[in-house]
């Protein structure tokens, strides 16, 4: 049966058909739908791990125990998982293990655009790159075979444009793969120096075998056409190449590490001009050039963002930029923003008002950094806020800490904020840490996590008690407030900032989009007699309230969910409640 599938769902299907029985991930755009999809197959164990490192460790254990295992994360998640990644690449597998890295050229929803094909060479593992959903399914299945054949984990590297594009897929049958027997094998599975030294020899051997495999695998193919132009490419850029240059000869690489040196040499010999088309880093180009082959690459193409067929035509064939109808100058920008009723808005309104230095973190609340709230000073990576606030204090002293807070979400705190808080207590910091607990992993589409008390398959489980964890770490001053009660939040912040001891303020209120929230029993309206047009309510930056230029008054919109923030901000009591 043929059907449309996004790349991520096709990867999940591929793992299912390959007989994978364990799947683990931490959500992160553009990877989230992979393990979300595989969780729908009842005979696959799936989980949201607290972070990517744990996800890969669970995956490694499942592989050692004999199961085919899928582990998925976004590109920066692989950095979190890098420690087990580099060790497990020495150990090899029992049941096949495929780790998906979902990269984000163009930074659609990320803090950088690192190219994780680089991990392949660095961690000495094969990297496979599909170009559409059908290949995502087929290559995932093949990746499990390669993993077991060459005794190595395999990275399936995709980009956002594959993850979130729907293309036609032919669904196959599930293959029943029995668990491989478990046998204790310390020399393979205990990475002591003496054992690891011997495993390194094996890894190099298997890489040499993979280099031979690369020459003949159907993952790499030459499409010989007009030989005046030959293009080496992989992944979604292959589609752009085919669209822009349908007559060119193409070497399409599905296995991008290790590269097929002889195949590339023979392709180069058959074409007049050789070009490498790859988004981001010159991973293929630099290796090809190192073999003494003349090639056009990044001197022609950008290291930044996504490519397109149009871009390739401009760069390679000198095509002019298409002249379109352009009205862009006349229209205002539409940046993303916090939803109406979002509890984070209360937090950032108060932080801005108090003019605090805010060490931020990753989640919807990173939007607190942009206009009109503009109340965040730093955002480094998942979990970094608490460490960053601690570093600021140690550099500038406790007076600076008295006007600094760390802000971190519930899912992010569990992911990698806990260790930062341990550092604060252990090393005598006085940080004030705000945990914005909205009962979900909101940014990626409302995934559960250990502190929601629900698993990926929607089964009830232990609900991690954030307050108890914080106290166990050694924080004596723990406050729980509603972030949309701004006077109380401000008073609490003042008290805790003044204290020369570390404290945690848990801002507890569910995400405004979370299903099953109770509806308010009232609506808000603006009393135009009382409204002075001061725009204080507008400065909270909510879609629920706008300023009407003609009347110089505020007005509530349909989107208002009566959260009451603007009502509290108004100094003239002009925003009032009416029962519904």
């Amino acid at each position, binding site marked *: 049966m*043929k*059907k*449309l599938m*996004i790349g991520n769902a096709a990867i999940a299907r591929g793992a299912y058909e390959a007989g994978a029985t364990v799947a683990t991930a931490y959500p992160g*755009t*553009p990877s*989230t*739908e992979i393990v979300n999809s595989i969780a729908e197959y009842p005979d696959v164990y799936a989980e949201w791990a607290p972070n990517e490192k744990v996800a890969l460790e669970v995956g490694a254990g499942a592989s050692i125990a004999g199961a085919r295992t899928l582990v998925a994360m976004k590109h920066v998640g692989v950095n979190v998982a890098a420690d087990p990644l580099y060790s497990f690449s020495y150990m090899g597998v029992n049941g096949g293990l495929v780790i998906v890295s979902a990269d984000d050229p163009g930074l*659609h*929803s990320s803090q950088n655009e690192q190219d994780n094909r680089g991990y392949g060479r660095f961690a000495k593992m094969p990297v496979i790159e599909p170009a*559409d959903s059908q290949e995502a399914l087929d290559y995932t299945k093949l990746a499990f075979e390669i993993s077991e054949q060459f005794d190595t984990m395999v990275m399936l590297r995709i980009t956002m*444009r594959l993850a*979130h*594009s*729907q*293309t*036609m897929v032919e669904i196959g049958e599930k293959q029943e793969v029995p668990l491989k027997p478990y046998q204790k094998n310390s020399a393979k599975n205990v990475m002591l120096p003496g054992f690891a030294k011997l495993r390194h020899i094996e890894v190099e051997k298997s890489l040499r075998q993979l280099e031979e495999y690369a020459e003949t695998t159907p993952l790499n193919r030459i499409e010989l056409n007009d030989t005046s132009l030959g293009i080496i490419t992989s992944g*979604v850029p292959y*589609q*752009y190449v*085919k*669209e822009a240059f349908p007559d060119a000869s193409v070497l399409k690489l599905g296995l991008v590490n290790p590269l097929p040196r002889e195949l590339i040499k023979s392709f180069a010999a058959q074409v007049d001009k050789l070009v490498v088309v790859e988004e981001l880093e010159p991973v293929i180009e630099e290796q090809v050039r190192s073999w003494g082959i003349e090639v056009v690459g990044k001197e022609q193409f950008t290291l930044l963002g996504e490519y*397109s*067929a*149009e*871009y390739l035509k401009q760069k390679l064939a000198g095509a002019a*930029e*298409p*002249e*379109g*109808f*352009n*009205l*862009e100058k*006349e*229209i*205002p*920008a*539409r*940046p*993303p*923003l916090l*939803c109406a009723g979002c509890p984070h808005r209360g937090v950032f309104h108060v932080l801005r008002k108090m003019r605090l230095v805010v060490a931020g973190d990753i989640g*919807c609340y990173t*939007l607190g950094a942009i*206009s*009109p709230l503009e109340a965040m000073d730093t955002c480094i990576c998942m979990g970094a806020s608490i460490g960053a606030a601690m570093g600021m204090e140690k550099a500038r002293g406790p007076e600076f800490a008295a006007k600094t807070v760390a802000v971190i979400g519930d899912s992010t705190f569990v992911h990698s904020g806990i260790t930062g808080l341990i550092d604060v207590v252990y090393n005598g910091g006085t940080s004030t840490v705000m945990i914005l607990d909205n009962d979900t992993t909101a*940014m990626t*589409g409302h995934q559960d996590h250990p502190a929601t008390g629900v698993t990926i398959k929607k089964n009830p489980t232990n609900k991690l008690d954030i307050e108890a964890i914080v106290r166990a770490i050694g924080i004596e001053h723990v406050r729980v407030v509603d972030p949309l009660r701004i006077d109380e939040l401000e008073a609490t912040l003042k008290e805790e900032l003044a204290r020369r001891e570390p404290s945690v303020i848990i801002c507890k209120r569910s995400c405004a989009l979370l299903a099953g929230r109770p509806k308010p029993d009232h609506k808000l309206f603006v009393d135009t007699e009382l409204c002075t047009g001061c*725009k204080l309510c*507008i*400065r909270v*930056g*909510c*879609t629920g*309230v*706008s*300023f009407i*230029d003609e009347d110089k008054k505020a007005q509530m*919109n349909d989107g208002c969910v009566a959260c009451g923030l603007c009502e509290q901000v108004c100094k003239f009591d002009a925003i009032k409640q009416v029962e519904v």
Partner: protein
Amino acid sequence: MQDKITNVLIVGVGGQGTLLTSRIIAQVAVQMGYDVKVSEIHGMAQRGGSVVSQVRYGNKVYSPIITKGEADIILAFEKIEAARWLDYLKPDGMVIINNERVNPLPVMSGKAKYPDDIHNKIAALLPKTSIVDATDIADRCGNSKAANVVLVGMLSQAIGLPAEEVEKAICAIVPAKALDINLKAFNEGRQLM
């Protein structure tokens, strides 16, 4: 079967249902035996920002994305979003615009003006511009949220998608409880072109 590729750009504000609409159009193309690719935006861009979904179908489709000057038709759920993406349209392309205004943040905060006559400017540039009060029509059909399906009705006339195929796709994709309203909204839209 036609040899060319049909490019449909669906633009709006995060939360307006561009994803669902692109899936309906793509499903129709699948039913008609075309090769189809759809590109979607998830994550950060969905939080009330400007969003775009792209549907391409034909005998063989390579790139999942539509480039500038390539779209046959733009389906806009909001007025200034139609203007924002207009450079993706072919010189003889068509625009169908829901006469809906959703103020972006700079307008709400009074830092920018909403160009209320923007649809007239588009119509002046492009003879094939249709502006429709799809939200009102959908509201009369039973739910203003079905406005996107009103636009799908107009689109299906404009690019020659058979009504029965679109209805089949709507039945496959729209949740059962909203089906009657959506089918009604679709047929209302179809009569507008």
